[in-house]
């Protein structure tokens, strides 16, 4: 008997196969939008593990995404021709190379997450937010100064390996890993760390380790999303991963309702579609976007899709 989440993962992977099988019959514009949605869902769900479930406010997700994007692109640009030969190899070989590139990107982002997480997770709240933002900016400026990786101009001519199959498959894997992790016995520690750090410490949980694990896992998937993004856009620049991008992902998490995976997925879909829908009024697009953001925060502070919260809300005991 296979457990339920594993069955769901299997079904999602099969669905990804199905969609990619018929992808020739789908309008390329819709495929592009769907790819963009998928990448944003991966980013938002992985950040939700850090921000939503563990309660550590990170503003550096775009930095980890850029590490993944750059390293994955470097693998397929520099190693690819050597491994596949002049003719570019068969589709299956390319698939294996791409998978390897994504994993390399993800692992290096996870390593960056560890490097950033160990010193900064001693800080709390706004301080942590600012330090992660700072690390994101440092990563960006560092890439701007690495000539091998294109410097300020970024990397061009990345092979377009990202297909709808890879995106949907990794969306499924991300959601699966985050959900299983949080619902496992071990994962209860993330929620405990968020709900009351002092109490968790008192019952013997190593909250620092939980924070770092959440950070590293989140960074890993951000790196995967970065790799997918680079092989989708075929060109990446350091400025594409500045803190505006991080904020975009945070907004998805908060609008979805912190620590609510389904809501966060819906918010990521909505916020990716919104600019597409607003394309006819492109001039006013960002004004409308920011205005909606303020109105939503005033009207539904618990998140757009967080329905359970409003039902279960109890009056808070007032503290002195």
């Amino acid at each position, binding site marked *: 008997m296979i457990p339920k989440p594993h069955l769901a993962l299997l079904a999602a992977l099969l669905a990804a196969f199905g969609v990619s099988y018929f992808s020739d019959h789908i309008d390329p514009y819709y495929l592009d939008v769907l790819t963009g949605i998928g990448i944003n869902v991966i980013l938002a769900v992985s950040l939700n593990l850090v921000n939503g479930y563990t309660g550590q406010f990170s503003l550096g997700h775009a930095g980890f995404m850029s590490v993944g994007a750059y390293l994955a692109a470097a693998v397929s640009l520099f190693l690819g021709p050597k491994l596949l030969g002049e003719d570019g190899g068969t589709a299956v070989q390319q698939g294996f190379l791409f998978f390897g590139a994504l994993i390399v990107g993800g692992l290096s982002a996870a390593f960056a997450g560890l490097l950033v997480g160990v010193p900064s997770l001693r800080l709390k709240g706004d301080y942590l937010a*600012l*330090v992660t*933002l700072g690390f994101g900016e*440092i990563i960006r400026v560092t890439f701007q100064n690495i000539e091998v990786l294109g410097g300020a101009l970024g990397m061009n001519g990345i092979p377009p390996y990202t297909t709808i199959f890879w995106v949907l498959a990794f969306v499924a894997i991300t959601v699966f890993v985050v959900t299983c992790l949080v619902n496992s016995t071990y994962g209860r520690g993330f929620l405990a760390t968020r709900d009351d750090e002092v109490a968790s410490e008192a019952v013997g949980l190593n909250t620092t380790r939980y924070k770092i694990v959440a950070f590293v896992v989140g960074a890993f998937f951000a790196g995967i999303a970065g790799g997918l993004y680079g092989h989708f856009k075929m060109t990446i620049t350091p400025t594409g991963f500045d803190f505006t991008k991080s904020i975009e992902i945070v907004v998805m998490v908060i609008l979805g309702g912190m620590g609510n995976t389904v809501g966060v997925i819906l918010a990521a879909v909505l916020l990716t579609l919104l600019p597409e829908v607003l394309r006819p009024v492109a001039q006013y697009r960002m004004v409308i976007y*920011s205005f909606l953001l303020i109105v939503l925060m005033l009207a539904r502070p618990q998140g757009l899709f967080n329905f359970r919260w409003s039902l279960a809300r109890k009056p808070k005991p007032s503290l002195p």
Partner: protein
Amino acid sequence: MVNFFSLVTEFLQQLLNGLSLGAIYALIALGYTMVYGVLRFINFAHSDVFMVGAFIGYYFGKIVPVGTLWGGLLVLAGAMLGCALLGMLIERLVYRSLRPAPTLNVLITAIGVSLLLEYSGQLVFGAAPRTFPAIFPSANFHLGELTISSNQLFVIGVSIILMVFLQFVVFRTKIGTAMRAVSLNPKAAQLVGVNIDIVISFTFALGSALAGAGGILYALNYPSIDPLMGVMPGLKAFVAAILGGIGNIPGAALGGLLLGTVETFVGGSQWSTYKDAIAFAVLIVILLFRPAGLLGKFTVEKV
């Protein structure tokens, strides 16, 4: 010996440039730190109030005769007044109803307000950079090899005057006492008859006026203004506020000056391409050793 002398001159020149940049960071940082002091949240829109200040100066500078000291001061006062009104408006319309909400929501709303100001700015003012007029008469003084522009002196002078004034308001006036009371304990302040709505409104007005002044002074030294000009200086000013210990007024001034100086020195060295990252590197190093900032008090969390 000559070599040593030119090295000293170079050092003094960079120090002066750094101090004038740092004074502007300090002015913006004060607004962040005051709002944080009373409401405990990062007012991301502050950097855009700074931008609006520069644009008010740009348009106001077309109406009043500029190029004289009094004309320039009039523009400065106009920008400060305009920004104070804008800050109060933002607080009244947006932040007031969010006071009981969790910090994160307020933060996201502040980001929303920031984006709204930036992109409405692009619609109203246009996205292309504009040249800020020379609203003050300017001259360069030479002290040996050292070049001092009157704008730099002016920036440092105005910043010092405003900071002394702020210190006076916060520690010597009734409303300043009320501000400190709200910052220590809003509920208790209310119990002893402090009208916290007025105090918070006043705090926003004061902080935004300083940001407006900062906008004008920044535009004097870097006379190309556009609707996104506030993002980087705002971010660094916030770093400065944290560096000095957030909620602490002398700390914000210290952090700003420190950051401006370090950044200018790095900009003049062989690592100049890392200039934008250095502020954050300094922040991280200092927070690792003093998690509450340079002048902040470290508090242990209690149950």
